[in-house]
């Protein structure tokens, strides 16, 4: 490092005498700009600061430390209707660190204990209270009101800032992404939710192709959507609470505007706007509405009557209309205290109309709903905040009700009443727990009902877990066949991964964050407003419509609200950004100038997506090589660069004001404002695993993103201590020979999922058709792709209300001892009745020998008469053992006996299997090239290299390439081979990996052909193969789909009780269905007897006695309807048919069977 530093030219000295000549040296100016080496190092530096899942943790921290206090402040007071003197005030709220109290002892609760014991990782929420008792005011501190599930890694989590050593002691993996919750032992992730921006005007066309402006207002108390529609050349106000659309001028009048001129002025007096408004003004006068009260009355008559309110405090229609205008319509716009309270709302509406008129005249001014600048992401913090506020309100409501009832009593009980005793903790505790556990976010207040907000964290592999933490769920319906929201947008560049999305119904709706995306949290508006004024903004409150929309200056918006105008937009924006670079404004606040709308938009709201970019000034990067060196030496970090203004965060909207160069060659002196840190950051952390993805056909990268999550590997350093229901682990995982920067950054090397297989791409036997691969048996013998299959079983020992309890016992009950043949299944049990660790379990073996009590009829009386009697004598016990099921034996890995908060005794048995690959197991390379094992071949039959006896682990058929076009895989092979020969890992980073030409040269240097093709000898005939074979190492993943879990056959087996037909599905040992299409084939072929055999004889044949006279079903030789057995015959029919006949009969439908001789 030091030597390279010396070679660097000395940094240009400012203020030097040569400065002038330097600047005007033509030759120097035309020189190509020197590339900054190892620029990518900024990415890990960024991630150290803002991590892959940091957005979850940041958001939750914001909730814990800021938001929750605001929630409390907004709902601080409880009063009582029974006693006007009473009040209770919540003055402070704080959340502790997770602890648990058991047996009157409190101890620190760590995540691993929660996972093992099925507990919730939660911390107590405490409040400070001020309330009255009698005539006095009491102040109580630290009152618990419930428990808040704690996000791992959040500020109040024990793991926050914990050293690796301590993490290891607490059985945590240092590379675990965190950012999830543990609810009842299950890890749950709150998926990022994508939504349209709140409080912004969106101009669009409704289904009837009418132009409309839509605003979704959202405040702490209300959420509502206000629409202004342009219908028949007229404008209408549309709102949920209004049964009919209100002519806009009526709405204006209802809000206190007196004359048409005022209305016209607030929208704009240019001819275009006046013309657009003319018919609306006319409509109003036709309705003969001239005053505010007339308008309110008119509106009142159109208000939707809400039934649910019961006996409402009979408001007059105009009062109701006023209420709606005041509180619901455009709820986010505050009312002013001046003579015209609605002025701001009017102005906002005027703006909406203006925008619609513009859009009508020029449809290109319609907003794009799918444009990502119009989207906001809702994270764990916001979601939990909503839920918490709802629950807190419910908690207060319950509390108030109890206080009311207590205070309405009389006497000493009332005087001594202490309101604190009424605090119930489980409203909030169970409310939060339930919502996170089930994923159902139901908030009646906001009419919000979302399902699937949380998902259990997939621990199949490390990548699956990280992939889940960066996933974005959108609210669109999956069933609708719309392409707009699913399509990849230009505005996704750099913030969403273009490859990582599922296939099928949710394609394009579920997205993933790119590597360097950060999601903002809310930032206070007031200081920004202040700064704007300091920068020379004229306050909007002082301006009328004409002045607001004058071409002379631009309108400035702060989070969607017009706050003022400025005459020099460029200067304003420049100064604002300067202040931001200086750290006077939070780095995530965005400002951008919209030339088309003649507006400046400032945004500081949460949920925006920002990404860091290098700042370019005068066509030169501000970042210098020495900065990168300082970074790698640890002298500086990302924040320093931010402070020095070398790096800037831009959100999607501000990117429109920037010209971002991809690399140094594309820097232009005049216009470039920014440069990408490194182009590979446009991919997410899952797509980043693919080497040379830019050489692949794009869907292949998408397939790999889905498959990388199914690869068996390592899921964390604590994997052997984990107690998941199902875990797939690789015995000898390897880090890939061809890696990418992303792989290094997201620690895939530390927790890999796959092995570098020696691959020969050639045709071998016929067992490799349709993407099948051939494996080398000796490789398997030596441990290739060996996997552990770890499974958890559990049983709880219940106590029943009648005093009895389940028991576990060794071997068998004394009574059953004579049944010697049954003993074998008990072989694994120890003295306590649970299997010994290390014991092999075969199918049918019992590993928890549990017995459940069955109460005897007379035993109940006995317990009554002799209450002190030993309860066990009174119960008969029935065996309820947990037995192992599975064709292959498993070993008992661990036995955990513990207690949960509900169950006093819980047993978890973890079994383990080692699985060697077999025919039918699934493998995949990192390029969406999956295949099953078609044949396992002994090593001596494998082809071998004439060079050194090299012999493939895996043979892949070359037909997999032409249609898939995964050139990246071929380059991976060549780079991997070069890497092996030179003893170094090679890089296949997107857009910048080691070039294949270089790799070819390395191959030649080592005596191999430049194209990766070798001369092989046939292992079977011993002759030299007449073709060269493309061979070398490729990183292969073993996928979780294994034949052992899928293979199924049945000759005879169980039948379902109702229809007596064979059961369905492998888990029930079901039959294989001869379905409709198969039936069609047999009919078409004319194989009537085969059909009869398949559908009846081998299924549910049943002999029915049918009476030839009445056609009813009788019984053997007798018809109970005719009371005779004369014409009763036996008929064979499917049992299902007989069932149908009888069911129909029971519904009073007469079904007759007519018999005839054949």
């Amino acid at each position: 490092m030091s030597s390279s530093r010396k070679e660097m030219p000395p940094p240009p000295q400012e203020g030097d005498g040569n400065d002038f000549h330097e600047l005007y040296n033509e030759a120097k100016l035309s020189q190509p700009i020197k590339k900054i080496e190892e620029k990518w190092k900024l990415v890990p530096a960024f991630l150290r600061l803002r991590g892959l899942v940091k957005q979850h943790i940041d958001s939750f921290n914001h909730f814990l430390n800021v938001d929750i206090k605001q929630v409390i402040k907004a709902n601080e007071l409880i009063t009582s209707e029974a006693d006007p003197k009473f009040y209770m005030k919540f003055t402070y709220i704080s959340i502790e660190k997770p602890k648990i109290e058991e047996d009157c002892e409190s101890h620190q609760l760590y995540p691993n204990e929660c996972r093992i014991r099925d507990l919730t990782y939660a911390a107590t929420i405490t409040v400070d209270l001020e309330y009255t008792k009698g005539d006095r005011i009491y102040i109580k501190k630290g009152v618990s009101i419930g428990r808040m599930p704690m996000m791992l890694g959040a500020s109040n989590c024990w793991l926050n800032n914990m050293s690796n050593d301590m993490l290891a002691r607490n059985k945590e993996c240092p590379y675990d992404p965190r950012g999830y919750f543990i609810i009842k032992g299950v890890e749950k992730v709150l998926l990022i939710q994508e939504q349209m921006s709140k409080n912004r005007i969106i101009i669009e066309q409704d289904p009837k192709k009418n132009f409309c402006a839509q605003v979704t207002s959202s405040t702490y108390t209300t959420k509502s959507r206000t629409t202004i529609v342009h219908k028949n050349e007229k404008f209408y106000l549309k709102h949920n609470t209004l049964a009919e659309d209100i002519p806009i001028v009526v709405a204006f009048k209802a809000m206190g505007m007196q004359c048409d001129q005022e209305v016209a002025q607030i929208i704009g007096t240019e001819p275009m706007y006046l013309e657009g408004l003319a018919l609306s003004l006319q409509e109003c006068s036709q309705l003969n509405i001239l005053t505010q009260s007339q308008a309110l009355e008119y509106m009142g008559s159109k208000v939707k009557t809400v039934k649910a309110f019961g006996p409402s405090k009979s408001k007059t229609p105009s009062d109701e209309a006023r209420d709606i205008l005041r509180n619901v319509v455009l709820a986010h716009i505050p009312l002013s205290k001046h003579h015209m309270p609605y002025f701001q709302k009017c102005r906002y509406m005027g703006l909406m109309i203006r925008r619609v008129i513009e859009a009508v005249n020029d449809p290109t001014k319609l907003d794009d709903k799918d444009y990502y600048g119009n989207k906001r992401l809702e994270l764990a913090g916001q979601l939990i905040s909503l839920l918490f506020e709802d629950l807190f309100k419910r908690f207060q409501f319950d509390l108030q009700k109890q206080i009311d009832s207590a205070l309405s009593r009389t006497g000493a009980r009332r005087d001594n009443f202490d309101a604190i005793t009424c605090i119930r903790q489980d409203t909030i505790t169970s409310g939060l727990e339930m919502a996170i556990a089930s994923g159902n976010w139901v908030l009646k207040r906001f009419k919000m009902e979302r399902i699937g907000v949380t998902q259990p964290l997939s621990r199949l592999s490390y990548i699956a877990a990280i992939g889940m933490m960066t996933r974005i769920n959108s609210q669109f319906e999956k069933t609708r066949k719309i392409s707009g929201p699913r399509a990849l947008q230009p505005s996704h560049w750099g913030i969403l991964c273009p490859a990582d999305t599922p296939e099928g119904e949710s394609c394009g709706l579920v997205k993933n964050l790119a590597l360097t995306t950060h999601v903002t949290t809310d930032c206070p508006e007031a200081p920004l407003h202040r700064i704007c004024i300091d920068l020379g903004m004229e306050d909007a409150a002082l301006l009328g419509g004409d002045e607001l929309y004058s071409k002379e200056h631009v309108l400035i918006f702060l989070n969607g609200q017009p706050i003022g105008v400025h005459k020099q937009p460029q200067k304003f924006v420049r100064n604002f950004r300067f202040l931001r670079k200086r750290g006077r404004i939070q780095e995530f606040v965005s400002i951008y100038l919209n030339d088309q709308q003649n507006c400046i938009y400032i945004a500081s709201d949460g949920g925006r997506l920002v990404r860091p970019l290098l700042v370019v000034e005068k066509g030169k990067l501000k970042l210098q090589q020495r900065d990168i060196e300082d970074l790698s030496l640890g002298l500086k970090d990302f924040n320093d660069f931010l402070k020095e203004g070398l790096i800037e965060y831009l959100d999607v909207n501000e990117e429109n004001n920037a010209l971002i160069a991809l690399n140094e060659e594309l820097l232009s002196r005049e216009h470039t404002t920014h440069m990408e840190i490194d182009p590979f950051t446009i991919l997410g952390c899952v797509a980043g695993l693919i080497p040379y993805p830019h050489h692949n056909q794009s869907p292949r990268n998408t397939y790999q993103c889905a498959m990388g999550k199914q690869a068996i590997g390592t899921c964390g350093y604590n994997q052997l201590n984990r107690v998941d229901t199902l875990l797939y682990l690789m015995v000898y995982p390897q880090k890939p020979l061809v890696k990418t920067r992303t792989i290094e950054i997201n620690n895939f090397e530390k927790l890999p999922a796959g092995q570098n297989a020696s691959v020969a791409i050639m045709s071998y036997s016929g067992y490799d058709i349709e993407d099948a691969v051939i494996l080398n048996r000796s490789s398997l013998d030596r441990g290739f792709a060996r996997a552990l299959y770890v499974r958890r079983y559990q049983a709880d020992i219940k106590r029943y209300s009648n005093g009895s309890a389940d028991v576990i016992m060794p071997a068998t009950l004394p009574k059953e001892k004579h049944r010697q043949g049954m003993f074998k299944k008990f072989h694994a049990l120890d003295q306590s009745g649970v299997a010994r660790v290390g014991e092999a379990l075969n199918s049918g073996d019992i590993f928890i020998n549990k017995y459940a009590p069955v109460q005897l009829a007379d035993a109940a009386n006995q317990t009554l008469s002799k209450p002190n009697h030993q309860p066990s004598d009174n119960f008969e016990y029935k065996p309820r053992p947990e037995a192992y099921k599975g064709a292959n034996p498993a070993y008992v890995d661990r036995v955990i006996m513990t207690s949960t908060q509900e169950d006093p005794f819980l047993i978890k048995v973890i079994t383990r299997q080692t699985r060697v690959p077999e025919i039918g197991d699934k493998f995949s390379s990192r390029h969406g090239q999956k295949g099953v094992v078609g044949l396992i071949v002994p090593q001596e039959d494998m082809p071998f290299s004439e060079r050194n006896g090299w012999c493939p682990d895996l043979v892949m058929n070359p037909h997999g390439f032409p249609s898939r076009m995964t050139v990246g895989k071929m380059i991976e092979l060549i780079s991997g081979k070069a890497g092996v020969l030179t003893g170094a890992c090679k890089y296949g980073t997107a857009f910048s990996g080691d070039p294949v030409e270089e790799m070819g040269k390395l191959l030649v240097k080592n005596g191999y052909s430049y194209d990766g093709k070798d001369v092989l000898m046939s292992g079977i005939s011993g002759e030299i193969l007449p073709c060269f074979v493309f061979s070398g190492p490729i990183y292969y993943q073993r996928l979780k789909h294994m034949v052992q879990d899928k293979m199924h056959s049945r000759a005879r087996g169980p039948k379902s009780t109702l229809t007596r037909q064979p059961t369905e599905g492998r888990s029930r040992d079901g039959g294989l269905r001869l379905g409709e299409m198969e039936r069609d084939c047999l009919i078409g072929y004319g194989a009537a007897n085969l059909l009869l055999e398949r559908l009846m004889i081998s299924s549910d044949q049943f002999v029915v006695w049918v009476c030839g006279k009445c056609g009813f079903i009788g019984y053997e030789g007798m018809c109970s309807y005719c009371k005779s057995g004369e014409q009763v015959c036996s008929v064979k029919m499917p049992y299902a048919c007989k069932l149908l006949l009888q069911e129909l009969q029971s519904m009073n439908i007469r079904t007759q069977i007519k018999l005839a001789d054949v």
Partner: protein
Amino acid sequence: MESKAKFVEDRKKRAVVKTHGIDNAATFEHPASFQATTGRPDKTSLKDFIDECDIEILSLNDEEIVFDLVGAEPPLANALRRILIAEIPTMAIEKVNMWQNTSIIPDENLAHRIGLVPIKADPREFEEHTALTQAEVEEGVDDTTRYTGDDCLKFKLHVRCTKKDPNAPMVINNTFDEERLYNNPNVYASHLTWEPLGNQRTKYPTPESEPKALYPDILIAKLRPGQEIEMELFCEKGTGKTHAKWSPVSTAYYRLVPDIRFKREIVGEDAKELKRLCPVGVFDIEDIGGIKKAVVGDARKCTTCRECIRPAKFADVVDLGKWKDRFEFHVETVGHYRPEELVVEALKKLKEKTVHWLEVIQQESASGAEEK
């Protein structure tokens, strides 16, 4: 006539590497393959074969033997290679009684790892262990009790990791100082201790002759204080056919000996370029009377990287041939046998198999004759 003979000779003996693949790679075994050209079937006699076939040893050390098998055809060479890989018996750990394993490696993986450890013992001194019959398996007979000194080697592995300083704190995250802080932080193959069965003590009286792991530094497992591995290991005689752990060779392969010629002389700058092209230095330059001429230096160095025929101007001039009846064998032993012994063993095995099939054929023809 002469050109015809040369043509046949070339077809039979020489494969040619071209840019697109290898021409004339196939073997012509049938005596009538060239009857149309030569007008008569080839002579095939055992005597000719015996005269022509030969082994020339090129190099020999403790690990590897390199020799040329001359005058043979691929089936013979391949049979030898296949036998070396899969059919020469060695001793390897096959059964394990695991008494204690508190290490982080699961039992079956530990057993698998230990099975792959090569054991130093002469397999020729042992018999094959007879497998349990189905009835015995059902009865639950413990196979390890049936081992005798003639068919088994028994080892014990008992390693326990402790802290060197009992008062030291339990250090978790250390990977650097393990040897200094703990006793037995690593389980190596050298921890295997041999336990004589039957008369084995007298068979292997000295420490040198004692059976042990071939390489003492094979890492079997890692331990941390409090962890312990105790197991009994039973070696059986087996072949690579059953499991790769019994394979006595690291690798056994052959290649066709290269024969590089020039179709016309390459002189001057071209000669220099050709020399420079070859990464392994097959070509030399001879200066004859001031004319620099390319010559083939050591053809055996050639790795068939085809760099020399990549430029179009050389593609037709350099003739990269390979002798189809000259196999350069490389046999690298794992260590159970000496490499030269391995080849002899393989030939013995081949002979044994041939004799067996000869008997079968003779019996068949005898019985066939009887029927007639």
